[in-house]
């Protein structure tokens, strides 16, 4: 039976959370032992995981600054996780002080923490909602309060789509969100992929299994499947590319080999 909307989701901090694991990869301490244990296990297979996350963060930073440069100052970041440092609102509001940011996550701890971090920031808000139910996001108080859907929005789906299984129709959900956005809106996506990971396939699969075991399966998608999320958008140069290759600002020799993993891209709604 489907859980009624008003029935609360239970919180079990003995179960690892992908957002707290992510925080651990980034050197944060917003995590519990169960999260660290899972993270360490995954790192046994892929020691470079933190570098991928770092590259992911660096891309997001570049993409946000790109959006501001393009005149888009409204941000909807779905799957925002645990705010640590260099978050979207910090990057965006540094570039454009009036920028508005709505974070969305379905992890109640991440939501509670975001609420605490954003306290006092009138131009940022957090919504407890799930990418798989776009209408709940679009109709949320924070979105209504902070985002003008008649003007372009930068929709950030950073490191989240690879946690949505095909049975949950991720393409349909992304399209549903696209349809709610004004022309000129930007879609910012990063997605895990086995392509370009500098490891034997077996090692990658081991890391993927860790996520499967914590009931947050990680769906590695091929480039073409990631590209399909941009249906209805025109790709911005340089298109859908490895994380580090999207408008790089760092010399290649400074980049970790893992930074080539995963795909990043930005599209503009026609």
């Amino acid at each position: 039976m489907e859980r009624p909307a008003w029935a609360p989701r239970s919180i079990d901090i003995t179960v690892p959370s992908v957002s707290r694991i992510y925080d651990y990869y980034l050197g944060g301490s917003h995590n519990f032992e169960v999260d660290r244990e899972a993270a360490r296990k995954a790192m046994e297979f892929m020691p470079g995981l933190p570098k991928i996350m770092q590259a992911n963060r660096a891309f997001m930073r570049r993409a946000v600054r790109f959006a501001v440069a393009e005149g888009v100052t409204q941000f909807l970041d779905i799957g925002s996780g645990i705010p640590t440092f260099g978050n979207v609102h910090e990057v965006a509001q540094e570039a454009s002080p009036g920028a508005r940011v709505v974070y969305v996550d379905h992890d109640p701890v991440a939501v509670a923490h975001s609420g605490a971090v954003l306290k006092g920031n009138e131009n940022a808000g957090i919504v407890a909602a799930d990418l798989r139910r776009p209408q709940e996001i679009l109709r949320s108080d924070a979105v209504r309060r902070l985002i003008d859907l008649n003007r372009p929005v930068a929709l950030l789906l950073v490191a989240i789509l690879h946690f949505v299984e095909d049975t949950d129709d991720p393409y349909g959900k992304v399209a549903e969100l696209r349809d709610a956005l004004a022309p000129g809106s930007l879609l910012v996506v990063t997605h895990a992929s086995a392509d370009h990971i500098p490891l034997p396939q077996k090692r990658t699969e081991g890391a993927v299994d860790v996520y499967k075991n914590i009931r947050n399966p990680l769906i590695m998608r091929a480039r073409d499947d990631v590209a399909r999320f941009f249906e209805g958008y025109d790709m911005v140069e340089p298109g859908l590319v490895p994380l580090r290759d999207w408008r790089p600002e760092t010399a290649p020799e400074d980049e970790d080999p893992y930074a080539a993993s995963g795909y990043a891209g930005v599209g503009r709604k026609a």
Partner: protein
Amino acid sequence: MTTEPDGPEDRLRRFAAIWARAIFPVTATSLTRPEFEEQLVPLARRLRDALHARAMNAAEGQALGAALIDVHCTDPESLSRTLDCVDAYLVLYCGEDGPQDALRTRASRLQHAMAAGFAQALRERTLAEQETIAHAALHAQEAVAQALHASEARFRAVFEGAAIGISIADLDGNILEVNNTLLRMFGGTEQSVRGRNVKQWTHPEDAPQVWRLYEELVQGDREHYHIEKAYYRPDGTVLWTNLTVSLLRDADGQPQYQLALMEDTTERRLLNLRLRYEATHDALTGLPNRTLFFERLDKALAAGGDARFGLCYLDLDGFKAINDSLGHAAGDRLLVEVADRLQACATAPGEMVARLGGDEFVALTTGPDTQHEVDALADRILNALSAPIRIDGRELTVRGSIGIVEGPAGERGPAEVLRSADITMYRAKSAGGNRYELADPEADARVITRHGLTTALPAALDRGEFFIEYQPLVKLGDGSVRGAEALVRWLHPQHGVLGPDRFIPLAERTGLIVPLGRWVLEESVRQARAWQQRTAGSGPLRVNVNLSPCQLTHPGLVSDTVEILEEAGLEPDALCLEVTESALIGADDDLLKPLRRLAEMGVDIALDDFGTGYSNLANLRRLPVSVLKLDRSFTQGMQQFPADPVDLKIVEGIVSLAHSLDLAVTVEGVETGAQAEQLRLMGCDTAQGWYYARPGPPDRLHELALMDATG
């Protein structure tokens, strides 16, 4: 600030670049390396200043260690690499011209302080972040707890406020929780329900699958089931429910509880039973009604194998008279008493009694030996009716007529069986009642044909299926044709030509005799007029037309007759209306008045079939008749040779009597010349019969009359 090549500022920046290159790979920053390096430049400057400070400032060293944490270098490797950098390059790039040993000592001490500061800051940051995330978790849990509480409150409200009974039991059947509605349904206190085990709640009416479904559910093989189930309440009364039981599983999918939702259907069920009873039982007598009877009859007739059935169709004799004389209330009481007696006659398994309506009852038996049983049943019924019934202080004797149909199942439908029983009952009734008759296919067929004729009559008249034959009336004195009797025939599309005996009684019963009689009269009068025109001068040809008792009482008789005569232009004295003797028995003046009027106009009235009824000779003079038609039974006695002397005497006497009353005498059924001669000698005036001519088409009569005239 000046950055002259190899100047102090340039050397400071080079140190910062080396430092940044060393630790950038182990940071988690999202900044680019140049951006990161920019963040390190102020720290490098502070390091240089601390190196050159007059006194060693440990606090500044610690602050610089802590600053690493502020630029998100939380990996211990970044401290290690920082200290390596300081150790190797700080004095080299930032020592300027100071005393090398002292600077090295100072750099070394700075490293100690930085390490302590880094550790301290990392510890504080870690603790702070742990506290933050713990707070967030706690906060989220509180929110969930609140939501859970609200949700629980909602569920509790639904649970308690639901109009259906809800109970939760464990998989062993122990009841853990019930709502008030369920308690009310069971009419008990909590103790009587809670703490009990659902497996104790058996009921004799439990469908066979009830407990199988239950076992499947608690074993996890079934998610839910829906049944109708009865329960005993603590006070022994029965509670009927629509029961839905669902299996509740835990988060891992293991069966955990069973949830029962029950709707009290006791009232509805009672109402349904009552409605069903009312729909299938007669309100007055309480006997099964037509509907239920037909259900049973259907079933009996549909039974396979060599099953048989026996049916008694009972109609009370003279019930209408009782109803009319004592009133409907008394009639109803009588029916109730009869119903009770009938009920007592059919108590064996397979027997039933029903009231079809009015005073019609049926008894059905489907026992093993219906051939014998159905007769016995009819005997019992007649016997049960034989004792008088006391109503309003009167002893009423009730009799009944029974039609019995018995036979193998599977051959006839219920309607056919019931019709046969009905027909047979009428046979018993016309045989005098208070008896039973067995169905007979031939008798049924006759009745069915008669019924078919009756219903076909009206259309037959419209379609012109009737025609008239004429039998000549001959004057015995000279053998001349004086006229003819009009005899109506029906050319039936299936049955061929039918004589009046086949359909006139039916027409009388349905009232069709009036239009039919009028048509015959019109036709005959027109024919008589035609004859007269064709035989002008050879004496008038008259026509005799039969009047049925129904026509006699019809108010339009005189006016219709006058109209018909006038229209055809026939003199009234050319028409003779024949009325049977029996129709005039006990006739009062009102009935005779129209006949008298017609007689006064000149229409002859003949008394038909004279001598068959209770001929009231005294009455004869009172009747407006001018002709006696002697019944053929008298002439039959004269056919033999020598003629029956008694018959001769009677005919002689009647003729003499008639003539003394100034009545002419016509004899019917004359078949031989000897008869004709005898009758002539005895003084009869007119004769008809096969000796002269059979009934035939009008033209034949015309020919006979002409022959007569010329011969």
